């Protein structure tokens, strides 16, 4: 073990050259400095490296530039100044991003956040509203499909379909649908749902005498044209909601905020 450490300490290739470079630059303190000094004392190559680095630093400082003579004068002419003077959007950028307008960045962030939150809150509430109205629309559409058959037999069959076997019991005059309970949640629920529920509960059905779902005046969900109109009108409401003035205002706030942030960042970028 001690032999290994001896070998390691005398092998220059394994020594930390960066440590020697840091020592030559005067950047080391404490134990690292002591370690580096120990290296330069115990290893001749490390000592040479240290001296070489110091010599190179001196030579670099003393070296003249490779091209010592400035080829031309760099003063600006009035034409240059006129060309370079900020105008238009550059002047705006300068005004927004100058050190004086320290509020430009917070203002931009605030505007963008306000706009984003406003849009989110507005549209979440809007989508809640449309989600609440969506089942009514579906029911209305399905009810309209159920109302389409003309004959009472067909209507009865549909009633049987929709209530899960209740139709057979009804037509055979058997007991009401205790054997074939109606599913609670039946897809394509029609206007006969209430009837199926009535049959399932053993209530007198009188199904042949039950008229098809009546279209109450003003009941949009019950008639096909009105239902389609409701869907489109709901969709229109959503679309209108997106473009309503408040949303436009929030959108404008986001755009304005992002614009101010971008301009202030652009102005703070180091020149060139």
């Amino acid at each position, binding site marked *: 073990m001690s032999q290994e450490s001896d070998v390691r300490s005398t092998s220059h290739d394994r020594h930390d050259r960066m440590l020697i470079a840091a020592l030559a630059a005067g950047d080391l303190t404490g134990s690292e400095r002591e370690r580096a000094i120990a290296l330069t004392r115990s290893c001749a190559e490390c000592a040479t490296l240290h001296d070489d680095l110091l010599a190179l630093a001196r030579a670099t*400082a003393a070296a003249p530039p490779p091209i010592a003579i400035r080829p031309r004068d760099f003063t600006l002419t009035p034409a240059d100044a006129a060309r370079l003077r900020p105008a238009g959007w550059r002047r705006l950028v300068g005004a927004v991003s100058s050190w004086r307008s320290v509020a430009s960045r917070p203002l931009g962030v605030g505007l963008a956040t306000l706009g984003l939150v406003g849009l989110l809150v507005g549209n979440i509430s809007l989508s809640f509203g449309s989600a609440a109205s969506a089942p009514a629309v579906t029911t209305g559409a399905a009810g309209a499909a159920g109302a389409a058959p003309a004959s009472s037999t067909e209507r009865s069959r549909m009633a049987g379909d929709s209530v899960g076997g209740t139709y057979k019991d009804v037509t055979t005059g058997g007991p009401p649908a205790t054997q074939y309970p109606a599913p609670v949640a039946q897809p394509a629920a029609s206007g006969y749902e209430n009837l199926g529920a009535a049959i399932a509960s053993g209530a007198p059905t009188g199904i042949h005498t039950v008229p098809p779902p009546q279209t109450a005046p003003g009941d949009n969900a019950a008639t096909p044209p009105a239902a389609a109109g409701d869907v489109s009108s709901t969709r229109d409401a959503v679309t209108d909601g997106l473009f309503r003035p408040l949303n436009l205002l929030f959108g404008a706030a986001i755009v304005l905020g992002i614009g101010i942030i971008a301009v202030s960042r652009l102005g703070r970028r180091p020149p060139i």
Partner: protein
Amino acid sequence: MLDSPRLRIAVRRDPLIVEDLRSTTVPDDPVQRRDLILLENARAGDLGAFNDLVVSYQDQLFALVVRMVPDRDQASDCVQEAFFSAYRNLAGFRGGSVKSWLHRIAINAAMDIQRARKRRPVQPYPELDDESWQPPAGTDADPVTTALTTERHRAINQALAAITDDQRAAIVLFDVEGFDYAEIAEMTGVSLGTVKSRIHRGRLALRDRLADRMDLFRG
């Protein structure tokens, strides 16, 4: 009540500070004070004041840039573009040292030129092969010493041109221009540790490239 001496003393003790902080950053340095006055005048539209700044710093900036971009024309364009940019961004000066500000702009311009040169590689540093210019020698200079000095300078410049751009910029700013670590970090937009690391690695790289010519520098 308002004329009472107590109030006047109180007012005198706590004056309202309305002075521009930028002009009080380095008030004791006459060069810096002069630079700030020139800069304020240039901001107010005085082109002559800006050109005074140009005259004061064009040699320094050219010497800096030409070490990083050792091509006469490119370095010249770079310095010109740096002054153009400084004029365009007079409003963006946020206090501190005008010299550092101008150096930073010039370094950024030089970095841009170097990046562009990497994208379109041409003959690397033809100016370094130009032996027409020699450093001025003293009247009593020994010819051997002069030749040795010339050779040493050429060797170090060639080695500097061979290391990476970042390392070269850090070494030039530290060893030649005399900026400290913090100033270099601020100029180049990197951390203090990165600046140190670049200088250390750059010096090691210089030594590796000059390994067979280190006798020029020893003793």
